[in-house]
């Protein structure tokens, strides 16, 4: 089980949170003009990376607010959490995790 740092409440147990998948997917400005290829890609297709994943979480059993996290999906190490609207943190200097 993970410990997750809510940007508002601090470090809490994972059981208080719900994961909601890939972050920073912008809703198209003009949905009516998309063809089925573009609309399907927006709704269903995901990066699903083995490595750093920018993802959304909600503190469901706490402050109920949404935030973003950067987690390594090989080790589950959370490198950073940040509020929506804050830019993606730059993690280029971080050493890659060694998988267990």
């Amino acid at each position, binding site marked *: 089980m993970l410990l997750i740092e809510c940007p508002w409440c601090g470090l809490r147990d994972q059981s208080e949170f719900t994961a909601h998948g890939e972050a920073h997917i912008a809703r198209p400005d003009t949905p009516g003009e998309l063809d089925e*290829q573009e609309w399907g890609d927006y709704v269903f297709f995901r990066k699903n990376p*083995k490595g750093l994943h920018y993802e959304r979480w909600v503190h469901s059993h706490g402050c109920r607010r949404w935030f973003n996290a950067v987690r390594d999906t090989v080790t589950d190490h959370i490198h950073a959490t940040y509020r929506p609207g804050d830019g993606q943190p730059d993690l280029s200097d971080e050493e890659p995790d060694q998988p*267990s």
Partner: protein
Amino acid sequence: MGIVIYAYFGYFLSHRTKNPPPTPFILHHPYERPSICVRMKRYSIFSLARNALNYHQGWQKAWRSPDPKREYEVVIVGGGGHGLATAYYLARECGIRDVAVVEKGWLGGGNTGRNTTIVRSNYLWDESAGIYEHAMKLWEGLSGELNYNVMFSQRGLLHLAHSVHDLQEIGRRGNAIYLNGIDSEFVTPEQVREMVPFINLNCRYPILGALLQRRGGTARHDAVAWGYARAADDLGVDILQNCEVTGFRIEDNTVTGVETSRGPIRAKKVGCVVAGHCSVLAEMAGFRLPIESFPLQALVSEPVKPILDCVVMSGSIHAYISQSDKGELVIGAGSDAYLSYSQRGGFDVIEDTVGPVLELYPIFSRLKMLRQWGGIVDVTVDRSPLISKTPVRNLFFNCGWGTGGFKATPGSGNVFAHSIARGEMHPIAAPFSIDRFNTGALIDEGAAAAVAH
């Protein structure tokens, strides 16, 4: 009586050893044949007796371990059950024997060797009935066809209903299955008790009824991988273990081969069957999939005497249980609620599984759990697989089986082989194309497959 004698002597013969051979420190299966082509000797009661006389020192290796050739007609990436079955049917039914299976670890080391081995074909939609029942029919003759005992056991499979909603779900699904000509019966709580005398019918999750598929059951997962590998090898397929695909060669939007940790291999066609890692391979080829990968866990107890002779599944409270022939209770847990490739899984998921299991079967409360593990499952939004062409010509993907693809192994490999050979999707595979997430023709098996195995 005959069976008893056979069973007794069969056990005696197959366990007769003098000095066990030293544990070989090799990464391959210990029974590999040398690379030169020696025809496979068939397994039978006579070969068992003959080898017992020789203290089991004389068994032929089950498959060769050749070096990769420079080029194959078809390369299959992924040596799980589905990949090996694909190679076997390519060689057996499609006349394509110039095939390699490229596996980064050892055969069956992915989800094939990590699953709870439940086999059934009672899905809701016609497309699903098509593929899962195709698989079931192949299972029914598989041990004979492969000359390898995959221990397929049609011991019957119950889906419990704990609420009015559950009853409606099994009602709708049970009738749909029946209309597709697949066996499916509704049973009362009393009938459930007859099959599982120690079940607690009136617990926190009362049992209001169940859906029974008598032809459902289990099979031995490793044996499925090994049986297909041995039979494919015998037809000339090269099985390359410890060989990781690290990239694709793509010219003019057409795949021409793979880069591997053992050097480049050219191929006219490539079939990718890597389960949880399908998005990783898709990224190498330059496209994305409608898939997310999650850890899914299972656990087994210490072995006990026979107590449970069917499979009992309970979707809404997430408790799946059966007893292996070794006597262990095999329990399927849930998947973690966040994307991950950490082949491990959270402890809270185990707790959420064991709680309901003990509520239904208080008799198991003092059993010790021996092992727990996780596999990375490739989950689509509609809980149906992808068996499909891709944006790259001659590159085919078979994935998205998620938490429940073991049961489909023979059928999936069979239709995938025919699709690769023909260059056009087999009619049973066609509805499972990646395109459906763009056209909207989803095959929504959420209720029947979402958490069930």
